[in-house]
């Protein structure tokens, strides 16, 4: 049988550990497809985060480096500066990139490191049991905001970090997409391709934020979780290109 829909070579033939309805599977695939389309597999070095995607190297079939929680872009800086000929990207969640790793993220972007950053925003800490993330929405219930996130209770506001990064001179491209519908997935794919192509053209730092469902923590069915992205998350995190130098 001639199969039309096949696994990209950069994805391993593996069963993932992700929960039903999780967005990581889609996003792993989008990254792998892009790398294969641009024929970069043999020169790619990925950096895996700490969080749900900690073992992303079990699913991607190219060189991958571990990073301590939040330090992915520091690790990526070390790799890329030593091997400018390699294509280096990080894949990080909201806790990793915006909370514990904010300094590394901000300064890597500000140095204009020629890197690609894939930022997975699911508005919670999935791996550790659903605590509040820096991107948790106002009123959103999590394990550590049982009454819903409240700025009045000293829990702060969701951080729109892609917009903040876009204000830096070193950032070439910043965009926000979602994996909530085929239409948005296609857009996400095009942003990811742009972010990798920029690196090939030595344009500096590119970040693609992707709103991604976490049905387990959100306590929603997979379909409802997708709907929640489209109806609620996008109000705080509007989709589209934020900066394209």
């Amino acid at each position, binding site marked *: 049988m001639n199969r039309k829909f096949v696994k990209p070579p950069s994805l391993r033939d593996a069963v993932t550990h992700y929960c039903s309805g999780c967005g990581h599977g889609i996003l792993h695939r989008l990254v792998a497809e892009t790398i294969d389309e641009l024929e970069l*597999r*043999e*020169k*790619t*070095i990925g*950096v*895996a985060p700490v969080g749900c995607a*900690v*073992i992303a*190297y079990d699913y*991607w*079939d*190219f*060189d*991958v*480096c*571990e*990073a*301590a929680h939040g*330090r992915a872009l*520091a*690790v*990526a*800086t*070390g*790799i*890329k*500066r*030593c*091997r400018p000929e*390699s294509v280096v990207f990080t894949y990080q969640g909201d806790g990793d990139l915006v909370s514990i790793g904010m*300094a*590394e993220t*901000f*300064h890597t972007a500000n*140095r204009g490191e020629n890197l690609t950053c894939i930022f997975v925003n699911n508005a919670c800490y999935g791996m550790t049991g659903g605590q509040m993330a820096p991107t948790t929405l106002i009123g959103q219930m999590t394990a550590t905001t049982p009454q819903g996130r409240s700025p009045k209770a000293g829990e702060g506001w969701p951080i729109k970090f892609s917009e903040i990064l876009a204000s830096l001179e070193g950032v070439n491209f910043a965009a926000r997409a979602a994996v909530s519908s085929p239409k948005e997935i296609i857009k996400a794919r095009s942003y990811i391709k742009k972010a990798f192509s920029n690196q090939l053209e030595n344009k500096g730092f590119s970040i693609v934020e992707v709103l991604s469902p976490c049905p387990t923590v959100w306590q929603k069915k997979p379909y409802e979780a997708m709907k929640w992205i489209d109806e609620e998350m996008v109000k705080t995190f509007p989709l589209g290109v934020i900066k394209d130098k």
Partner: protein
Amino acid sequence: MKTKKEKLLMSGNEAMAEAAIRAGCHFYAGYPITPQNEIPTHMAKRMKEESRVFIQAESELSAINMVFGAAATGSRALTSSSSPGISLKQEGISYIAGAQLPAVIINVMRGGPGLGNIGSSQSDYFQSTRGGGHGDYFTPVLAPWSAEEGASLVMLAFDLADYYRTPVLILADAIIGQMMEGVDFPSKSEFKKKLPPKKWALTGAKGRPANIAKSFFLKEGALEIHNEKLREKWGKIKQNEQRSSTYKAEDAKYLIIAYGSQARIACEAVDRLRGENLKAGLFRPISLWPYPAAGLQKIAKNIKKIFVVEQSLGQMLDDVKLALPGKEIKFLGRTGGGIPSSSEIVKFVKKAL
């Protein structure tokens, strides 16, 4: 900088930085902290001249994680700091040890705990020789007693790191870092074994299966297997890499044990005691981990009394006690930038006789 054999006047910090360049260090990242600032300053200038990488990182955390990434590509990588900054790097050092990556870390020790002060100190001995970060691991630790030895030990450290795939610490103190003296650079390190090819390096999966640099072993039993492999490695290092030196120890009855700048001061005390017809000698550990217990035990056989002198409240003292159970050991230590002088050592030894 000229490479032909000649003595150069430079600080210990500069000598160690320059030695890293001569050892082929391709990547340096660091964050300013006294008393090691001459290292990043020297590297900023020289790495550029050599078309290599220098980055002033936004923090010590970032610097050590940049080193993690650089080391993962197979490049020789260095970071340096002083005590409080080294505490911040410990998470990264633990990851580097777990992922079995080679890297060199220079600690020019200052007074602690906390922000402490910027005086010379040897109070990071425990941290350095007992792993330092979380988890079951050790790192080789080399302690220079001069600017020149700082240079040769940095060159050795890169070879040890590559050979054993481990982070290696240079444990200097503020006096060694700041003191200027003549430095003769060795043309290469004293390490004689052939260095293995870096087949594990992340260079892109071309013509080989993908390489993964990681310290994470989630499956039941996998981490235990990994850590047992590490134990085997630490065992080999313990066996092969003990280093020490002595001064007038052959016929000594009274043995002073000190390292780093404190050993320089102790030498003077040995001479002064000898001048008073007291057969004193010095044992100087160069590798602090592995502790040169075998060398010490050999010398200590004919020793009547042992004197441990440190710029700390007594940290290396523990290793001396472990190496020489049952021996009478006296301890003289000063802390917080206090440095036991040769007069204090002479007085201390004579009082104990």
